[in-house]
């Protein structure tokens, strides 16, 4: 049911852990539902200088967090802010339909971490995202 790429990321997840004194922190999901994800970001010169995540969840949850962290590391905040859960799933070669909704949370968690950063640094918010 999982692609080889999902399995590969699951067994060797990238960017696992926490960042002490992060610039942004986001947490989404619910342990009661079986998937909880938290993302830490370090921002430098308008770019994601570092990103770490921790996940309680299934294969899809861990693999999507790993893939999303690779996709945004080193990227401008604007680019990271546009990442969608669907793009993460596509990059993994697809996810089972049942996993799309509950386990594919990485981009959403990343957005929560960016929002947390913009709360402290409103000037850094890309203008098109300003609301």
């Amino acid at each position, binding site marked *: 049911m999982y692609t080889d790429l999902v399995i590969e990321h*699951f067994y060797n997840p990238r960017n696992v852990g926490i960042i002490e004194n992060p610039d942004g922190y986001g947490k989404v999901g619910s342990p009661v539902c*079986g998937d909880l994800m938290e993302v830490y970001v370090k921002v430098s010169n308008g770019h994601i200088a570092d990103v770490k995540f921790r996940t*309680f969840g299934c294969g899809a949850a861990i693999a999507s967090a790993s893939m999303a962290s690779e996709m945004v590391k080193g990227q401008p905040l604007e680019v990271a802010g546009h990442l969608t859960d669907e793009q993460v799933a596509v990059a993994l070669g697809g996810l089972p339909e049942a996993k799309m909704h509950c386990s594919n949370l990485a981009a959403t968690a990343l957005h929560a971490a960016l929002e947390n950063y913009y709360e402290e640094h409103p000037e850094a918010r890309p203008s098109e995202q300003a609301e």
Partner: protein
Amino acid sequence: MSSDSRSVYMDHAATTSVDPRVLEAMMPYFVQGYGNPSSLYRLGRAAGKAMDAARVKVAEVLGARPTEIVFTSCGTESDNLALRGTALASRSRGNHIVTTSVEHHAVGNTCAQLSREFGFEVTYLPVDSAGTVNPDDVGRAITGRTVLVSVMYANNEVGTIEPIAEIGKIARERGVPFHTDAVQAAGSVSLRVNDLNVDMLSLSGHKFYAPKGVGVLYVREGTPLQPVQTGGGQERLMRAGTENVPYIVGLAAALELAHAGLSAEVERLCSLRDKLIGGILGSIPDVHLTGHPTLRLPNSASFAFWGAEGESLVLHLDLAGVAASSGSACASREEGPSHVLEAMGLDATLAQGSLRLTLGRENTEQDVDYVLSVLPGIVRKLRAMSPIYVPDALRQVTGGSVRGTGAAE
């Protein structure tokens, strides 16, 4: 850690391999002895004789009459026939079914349909924290309108064995037919229907080393039952369709083999199971044994790990060569977490870390040692990346009974 390519199958509650002796017994009925048991000529009569002999063997293991054995295509079909067949045959007498909140979906979803489409009222009895039904609850739930009681013999997720004989006694005193889904119990515990006080009993061949695609429903003479599948007059009108002769022969051979060597195999499996349970509870912190601590299937060890999700445990065990399963929401095809663990009152987050290891004939002590050597590292790895794992947090959600007796209260 596991550089060797060891392969350990510990999911015998899901399915078993076909015993070579069973396959050998089946082989004459595919290419040479392929006759239809309903045919008059010798080829058909030979197939009919093979089926009759199989029916006698199954009846002997159950302590039943051969005429009380109905061959079906699987355990689910047997459950469907028992529930729908009895309920629909009894509509003039009542509209109430008593069952439990921990049944297999073959029973649960059939009850739900009988309720939805035929207006039956269904009482789903609760279980205690070990997953055990209280027989007195059955007695209290039966009304003058009750047409069937159905309680599983042993639970497929946590291995808890239900007090079937006691429940059967109560149902009989009240004059209500009693069905038990014995799909997980077969090959592990006695199936003597008169000791168990059951009127109907479901079996599935592939849980005891026969192939997938064949099952049995025992129906005590006089039990109200109408066919669910109609057509020709096979199986004494109770299950139409040309009989699957080779598979029926295989099921009977497998059941006979399983129950001939039962006590020795049960002793062996209990010893392996207890080593597995003791090893896991002793080497991994924050793990809860699910199901009854002692009144459980000889081959079943089931756990809930705090802070390590079930599907991830299963995938990592697979990488290490171990086949196991989980009832976590993510690992199952259901929307929510396991209805069994929920009914047992297990904390919802803890229930997401469920793992079931079920032993079988080919498992050895080395297999148990191997699982005990790889599992602690897997749990550690998942907890290290888990935002919810805090050592000792489990003590709070289980009221202190960390080292797992589910029957603590």
